[in-house]
């Protein structure tokens, strides 16, 4: 018996090492796939080890594993544009698992729950429950089954923080009097509601931050579950996930110029109120696909700045053709990626990689910004606010201080845009009125296609 127990512990130990290696190998695209294999091996080992536990009956375990696999496979095969909502959904599943296990553990142990145990158990189910509904809401917004517009009302933050405070208060009471078992369901229901309320005021533009934050919560709840179950493996996996989510949240909030406390309380979205008012009718210069193609062909250095609008228009593959056509003509083409260009951290890189654009041409904001003064053409496709020079110059602008791609420093700026409508934040973009800016009005996919035809056709 003791031997088996040791074997189980050793499988967990090896699994832990494999998990850390898995994340380490993810540091470079060259070794990243090894990371997935290490993760899979660790997971398999840990599950096999667990199944060796003495006195388990396998009936329900097997049913659960099979059903989970049946649900998991299609979730692994969604389109790349749907990855953000898939990720949000998997945060919800992870949190659901943690909450259910926590609930079961409470009813198995109650009413004699030691204080420390009750404390971590409370942390586990509160974080788990709010992450569950919060992630479902986020997934719904991303999938556009729920309205993307932020819904705000007066005193929202007070209501939300009040709910959280009540949940914590109940937890404190349960720690002192675990025999008051009727309080436990409340400690789940209130955070479930809080999760919904937390996401209601958040608009589409803030989704990258929200997903990262929910990721962090999911990790922390799993770590709390590790304390409840005395599982070092789980504490470590939860800590790794929590750390990862936290790093990404901080990255995203920096990229959006939001303070970190703002993010921690989930109280973002207020800046959405910026009114689209004062419709200026300053003149802009526009150009045809032929003219655009001519300028691009004559350039020696081009930086393409894609935004989510490009993905919405399904223009990635046309952009790749443009990349090919220009590269063939000897033009140096790079991509400048803003951290919040997609719907989740790194999303734009995945969308471009899917279109077979080599990853060494995808440059992060800080790496490309120095290049713009030597760039002949900056071509902006479906991005707006992340190129808005007002963020750098206009102290009154709602996005003042947000780091942007300095496209206005390029010799020529071209913007593919449907119309002059304002972007996510509803802010006018002075970039469009510069003398060096050419507006290319039309659907991104069509327009890029026309430029490509011009470039390849003209060459024979």
């Amino acid at each position, binding site marked *: 018996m003791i031997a088996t127990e040791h074997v189980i512990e050793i499988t967990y130990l090896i*699994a832990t090492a494999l*998990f*850390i290696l898995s*994340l380490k190998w993810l540091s*470079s*695209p060259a070794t990243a796939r090894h990371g*997935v294999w290490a*993760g899979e091996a660790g*997971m398999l080992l840990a*599950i096999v080890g667990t199944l060796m536990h003495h*006195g*388990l009956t396998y009936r*329900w*375990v097997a049913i*659960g*594993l099979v*059903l*989970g*696999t049946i*649900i*998991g*496979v*299609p979730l*692994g*095969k969604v389109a790349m544009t749907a*990855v953000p909502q*898939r*990720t949000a959904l*998997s*945060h919800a599943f*992870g949190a659901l*698992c943690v909450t*259910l*296990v926590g609930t*079961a553990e409470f*009813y*198995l142990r109650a009413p004699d729950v030691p204080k*420390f145990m009750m404390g971590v158990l409370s942390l586990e189910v509160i974080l788990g429950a709010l992450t569950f509904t919060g992630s479902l809401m986020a997934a719904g917004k991303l999938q556009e089954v729920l309205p993307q517009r932020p819904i705000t009302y007066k005193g929202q933050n007070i209501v939300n923080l009040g709910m959280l405070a009540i949940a914590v208060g109940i937890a404190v009471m349960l720690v002192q009097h675990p025999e008051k078992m009727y309080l436990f369901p409340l400690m789940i229901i209130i955070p479930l509601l809080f999760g919904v309320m937390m996401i209601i005021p958040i608009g589409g533009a803030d989704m990258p931050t929200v997903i990262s934050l929910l990721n962090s919560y*999911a990790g922390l709840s*799993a770590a709390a*579950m590790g*304390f409840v179950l005395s*599982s*070092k493996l*789980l504490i*470590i*996996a939860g800590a*790794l996930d929590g*750390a*990862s*989510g936290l790093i*990404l949240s901080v*990255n995203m909030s920096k990229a959006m110029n939001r303070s970190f406390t703002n993010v921690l309380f989930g109280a973002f979205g207020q800046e959405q109120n910026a009114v689209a008012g004062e419709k200026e009718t300053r003149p802009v210069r526009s150009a045809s696909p032929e003219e655009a193609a001519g300028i691009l062909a004559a350039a020696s250095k081009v930086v393409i700045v894609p935004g989510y609008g490009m993905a919405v228009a399904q223009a990635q593959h046309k952009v790749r053709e443009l990349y090919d056509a220009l590269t063939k003509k000897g033009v140096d083409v790079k991509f400048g990626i803003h951290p919040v260009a997609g719907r*989740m951290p*790194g999303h734009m*890189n*995945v969308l471009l990689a899917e279109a077979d654009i080599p*990853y*060494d041409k995808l440059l*992060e904001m800080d790496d490309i910004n120095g290049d713009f003064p030597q760039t002949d053409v900056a071509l902006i496709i479906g991005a707006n606010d992340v190129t808005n020079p007002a963020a750098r110059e206009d102290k009154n602008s709602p996005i003042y201080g947000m780091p942007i791609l300095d496209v206005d420093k390029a010799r020529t700026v071209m913007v593919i845009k449907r119309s002059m409508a304002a972007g996510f934040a509803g802010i006018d973009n002075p970039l469009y009125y510069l003398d060096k800016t050419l507006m290319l009005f039309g659907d991104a996919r069509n327009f890029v296609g026309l430029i490509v035809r011009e470039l390849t056709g003209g060459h024979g």
Partner: protein
Amino acid sequence: MNLDLLTGLYVFMLAAFIGFEVIRRVSPLLHTPLMSLTNALDAIAVVGAIILAGEGKSTLATILGTIAIVAATSNIVGGFIITDRMLKMFKTSAPRKP
């Protein structure tokens, strides 16, 4: 196999430091696969669910445990599949880079 509070906190703290150091090095290029991978790894919570459903100490525990296994397993399977699909797409323009 019992774990006292302090040991648990040490484990948590060390793992958090390792997590920060390792994950800070992940290129922003791969932040989406990073999130789907950590999500899959986080589903190691399935271990707790398996014991719950397998021991069957109460009907409630079995039911909740089984649902928890379904949720976690779908994360493991889906998470690894999509991470690998994404990583497969990342190619360089140079045939081999040092």
